[in-house]
C-alpha cells in the first residue's frame, strides 16, 4: 500500500481540485480529506455517506461555582490565561439562595470561571483544586465520516467550530483509511492535506511515501513551498511538484521548474488557468469528469507522471 499526500504550504493553490481529479483517475484508492477545519473535498466528489462517528478530542475544565471557594489556586497555576475572575452578578443566577446571600454578605468572593476556548485541557487546575470544584470531561469535537465514491471509499470529517485537536483527528482518519485499504486490498491512499506546516500538516504527511506539492507562480507560493519541502524532507517523504494556474506568470513558473531541477525534486507538470476548474466545482464534480479542456488534460498528465514517480518510490521504500 502506498500513501500520497497533496499539500501546498500556501492555501488556495488548488490542492482539493487536484486531489478530486486524481482520486477520480486512480482506478482504486481510498481518499482522505485531511483539511478537517475547512473540508471541501466532499463538495466536489460525488459520494454517498455510509458511516458517521463522533470524534472525541481533548479535555476541557469547568468550574462548579457552587464548590468554588475563590482560593485562586487554579488562577495562579494556569499557563494559558484561561481562568478569570467572574463578576458576582454573572454567577448569582447559577447559585443557590444560600450562596447568593453569602456573596451579598461578602462572606465569599471572588469567583473564578474558565474560558473554554482558551483552555488547553492540561488538567493542572483540576489536580490542584482543594475542593474538587473543577470537572474535566472529554469533549466531542466533531464527526468522522466514511462515504462511497466512484473509485473507492472517502474518509472525511468535520471539526466542530473553533475546536482544537485537528492533528489528532487527521491521524485517526489516516488510521481508518489504512484499515479500510488493508481490508479491501486497495493499493493506494490519497490524502488532501491542509495548508500551512503546523500540526494537522505534520499529521497528514508523517509516514506518507510521497508528497505532491501544488504550487502557483507567485513569490508567496514559492516561499511557502520551500518551507513545506523542508518539512517533507525532515519526514523522509519523496517530493513532487506541480504548478497550478501556471500561465498567470510564466516567468515565475520557469523559476519554479528550475528550482525543482536544481534541488532534485521531480516535476510533475503545469496546469493552465482554466475557468472550467471553478465551473466543475460549482457543478460538484471533479475537473476531469466534468471537462476535457486544457486544465483537465494537464491534470491527467500530472497524474500519469506521479504514478510513474510513485513506482520508483515503491522500489525505494520496500
Amino acid at each position, binding site marked *: 500500500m502506498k500513501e500520497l499526500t497533496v499539500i501546498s504550504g*500556501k492555501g*488556495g493553490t488548488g490542492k482539493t481540485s487536484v486531489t478530486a481529479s486524481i482520486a477520480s483517475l486512480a482506478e482504486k484508492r481510498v481518499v482522505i480529506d485531511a483539511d478537517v*477545519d*475547512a473540508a471541501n473535498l466532499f463538495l466536489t466528489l460525488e459520494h454517498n455517506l455510509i458511516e458517521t462517528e463522533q470524534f472525541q478530542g481533548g479535555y476541557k475544565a469547568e468550574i462548579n461555582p457552587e464548590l468554588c471557594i475563590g482560593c485562586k489556586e487554579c488562577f495562579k497555576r494556569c499557563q494559558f490565561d484561561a481562568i478569570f475572575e467572574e463578576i458576582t452578578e454573572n454567577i448569582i443566577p447559577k447559585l443557590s439562595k444560600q450562596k447568593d446571600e453569602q456573596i451579598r454578605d461578602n462572606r465569599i468572593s471572588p469567583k473564578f470561571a474558565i474560558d473554554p476556548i482558551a483552555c488547553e485541557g492540561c488538567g493542572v487546575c483540576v489536580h490542584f483544586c482543594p475542593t474538587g470544584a473543577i470537572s474535566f470531561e472529554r469533549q466531542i469535537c466533531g464527526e468522522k465520516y466514511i462515504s462511497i465514491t466512484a473509485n473507492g471509499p472517502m474518509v472525511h470529517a468535520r471539526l466542530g467550530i473553533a475546536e482544537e485537536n*485537528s492533528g489528532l483527528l487527521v491521524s485517526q482518519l489516516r488510521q481508518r483509511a489504512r484499515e479500510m485499504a488493508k481490508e479491501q486490498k486497495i493499493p493506494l491512499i490519497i490524502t488532501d492535506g491542509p*495548508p*500551512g*506546516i503546523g500540526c494537522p500538516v505534520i499529521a497528514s504527511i508523517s509516514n506518507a511515501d510521497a508528497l505532491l506539492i501544488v504550487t502557483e507562480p507567485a513569490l508567496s507560493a514559492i516561499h511557502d513551498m520551500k*518551507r513545506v519541502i523542508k518539512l517533507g524532507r525532515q519526514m523522509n517523504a519523496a517530493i513532487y511538484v506541480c504548478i497550478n494556474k501556471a500561465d498567470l506568470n510564466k516567468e515565475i513558473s520557469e523559476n519554479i521548474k528550475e528550482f525543482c531541477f536544481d534541488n532534485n525534486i521531480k516535476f510533475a507538470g503545469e496546469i493552465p488557468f482554466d475557468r472550467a476548474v471553478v465551473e466543475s466545482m460549482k457543478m460538484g464534480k471533479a475537473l476531469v469528469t466534468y471537462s476535457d479542456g486544457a486544465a483537465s488534460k494537464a491534470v491527467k498528465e500530472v497524474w500519469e507522471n506521479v504514478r510513474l514517480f510513485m513506482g520508483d518510490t515503491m522500489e525505494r521504500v520496500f
Partner: protein
Amino acid sequence: MIVTVASGKGGTGKTTVAVNLAVTAAEAIRATQLVIAPENPENFVELIDCDVEEPNAHLFVKPQNVVKQEISTMVPAVDMALCTLCEECEKICRFSAITMIAKKIMIFPEMCHSCKGCSMVCPTGAIKESSRVLGSLLTGQSSHGFNLTWGELRVGEAMSPPLIKQVKKTITCRSGRGNSISEDINNKLSIVDAPPGTSCPAVTTLRSSDFALLVAEETPFGLNDLALTVEALKKLGVPMGIVINRADSEQKGIIDDYAEKENIEIMQRVPFSREAAKICSKGLLLVNELPEMKQCFKELYLKIVSRITQNAKESKYKKTFTKTATSSSDNSIVGRS
C-alpha cells in the same frame, strides 16, 4: 482598534487585502484627508502577520531594519540525581510528553504543551526548565510609514498557537473587547493577517479582535469555508464584514445571498483581473500599480472606519473612534504596557 483579516479557505487573498489596506490606511492618515488626525501619524497604523506557518506579508511590504528574535517555550528537563521515580509527573501530563521507561524519565519535548504541571507536582524539585524553539518574531519598518511584525514558525514545529500568542503580544493597541480594557480602544489601527482555517491558529488570532474582515471568493469552496468562519466569529463575539475578492462581476452571487441571510455587510468587491493576479504574484502592491485598486481600497478603508465608529457608538464604551483618535497622546502610551 484591532481589525483582523481572515477567511476559512486559504488563498482567498487575506494577505493581499491586509497589506494593501495597511498602505491605504497609512497614506490616508498622512494626507489627513480624514476626520481622524492622530498626534502620531507615523505610528497610527501597524500590520501584524499572524499566519506564522506561512507568513507572506513581508514579501509585499519589504520591511527595512528587520529585527529578529528567537521565541521559545518551556519544556521540562529532569535532574535524575533528585528524581525519586514517583511517576507523579507522568500521571499529571495529559500530552504523553513525560513518561518513565526502564527506571528513567523520558521527555518528548515536541509533545509538551508547557502547562508546567510536571514541575508543580514534582515533590523533590527534580524538574528543571528547559526550552524548545517555536520560531522567530520579526519586526521591521515599511517605507509606507508603518511597522510590520510577523512570526515565523520553525519548520518541524507542530504548535503554532503559542507563537501566535507571542506575536499578538506585540500589538501596541489594545482591544476594546474582551477582558476589562475599555479606555484606549481607538487610538491606533492594528491590521492583523490571520491564518486560514477555523481551528486553533485562526481562533487564537481572532480572539479579542474588534472587527473581522472576511475575505471570500465566489466559489462553493469559498462559501462553505466562509460560513464556518462566520460561525466561529459568532462564538467569539467578534463583529464582521465581508470583502469579495476576485469578484466575477458586479452581479450578486452566492456570497451576497449568504451575507444577506446572515445580515453581514458586504464591504467591497475586488474585481478579478489577470493583471491584478500578475501584480500580486510578483510581490507588488495593487494600490501602487493600479489606480482603480487604489480607489477600491480607499473606499474599503473608509467603510471600515465608519463601521467601527458606528460599532463604538453602539457599544457600551463611551468614547468613539473619532474622539479618542483625536484626543491626547496619553492613550497611545497606555497601549504599550
